[in-house]
């Protein structure tokens, strides 16, 4: 029953329908491929409630940053970065794991710390000034 209606529906397709369908399938596929192949970043920006520091991902570091709740530990290893330890309750930031692609961001809202990966030239926005 439904199969018959489906085939009737497909038979009613016009040239533009096929083109539209193909165009949108291609567009979605392309966007997904682009999403998977995002370029890897060069720097890590760590933003705490009163300062913003940029580290090069080339060098491994393991540092503690203070927030309203206590000390959060952030590590850089093998050109990737992650929250190692956090004093917050739910630990979403720690469970997020590693990040290494441009614009990837992890935020720990309770402890007010944000880390994000940035590329070679950081595009300026209004918060830079």
């Amino acid at each position, binding site marked *: 029953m439904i199969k018959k209606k489906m085939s*009737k529906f497909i038979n009613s397709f016009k040239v533009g*329908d096929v083109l*539209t*369908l193909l165009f949108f399938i291609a567009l979605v596929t392309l966007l997904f491929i682009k999403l998977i192949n995002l370029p890897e970043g060069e720097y890590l920006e760590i933003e705490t409630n009163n300062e913003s520091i940029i580290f090069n991902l080339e060098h491994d570091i393991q540092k503690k940053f203070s927030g309203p709740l206590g000390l959060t530990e952030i590590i850089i290893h093998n050109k990737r970065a992650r929250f190692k330890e956090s004093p917050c309750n739910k630990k979403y930031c720690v469970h997020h794991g590693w990040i290494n692609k441009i614009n990837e961001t992890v935020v720990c809202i309770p402890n007010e710390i944000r880390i994000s990966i940035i590329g070679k030239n950081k595009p300026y926005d209004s918060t830079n000034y």
Partner: protein
Amino acid sequence: MTQQTIKPTHDDHRIAKLAAVAIILSMIEFFFPSPIPGVKPGIANIITLYALISFNFYTAFWVSIIRIFISSILLGSFLSPTFFLSFIGGISSLLILFLLKNFYGKFFGVISLSLWASFAHIIGQFILVRLWIVPDDGIYTLLPFFLLSGLIFGVVNGFITFLLLKQKK
């Protein structure tokens, strides 16, 4: 005796009936849990498409606008960001439907109108979100997922509209 100064025309009655159905579909959709936040099938748009194809753009326009206003008032989201998102989505789809309506039947069928409207809906919402609600480039990560859902539900809604139009004949 009170005099009726505004006489509702036959068109007005038809718009009211179609808008009522669209509002009910919006309500049903609202009470269904969505697996991914923000992804909704948009079944109310079936009525907009149906109105456009079986009547005219004027009917489709008013059905869509009335549906957006009334369902947001009923759900308590009137003038909240949710309302503006659905409003901008509705306006974007109507705009693309207005541009494409003359090609219907010659070059495009139901499914194309449905797909273009659903994509315009998503793109319009993304522009508004980028400009106003979340002014950060990070939201583009979500774009492929929303467009994929737009593709799936665009085809499904197109199919349902096709069945509705067939039934009418």
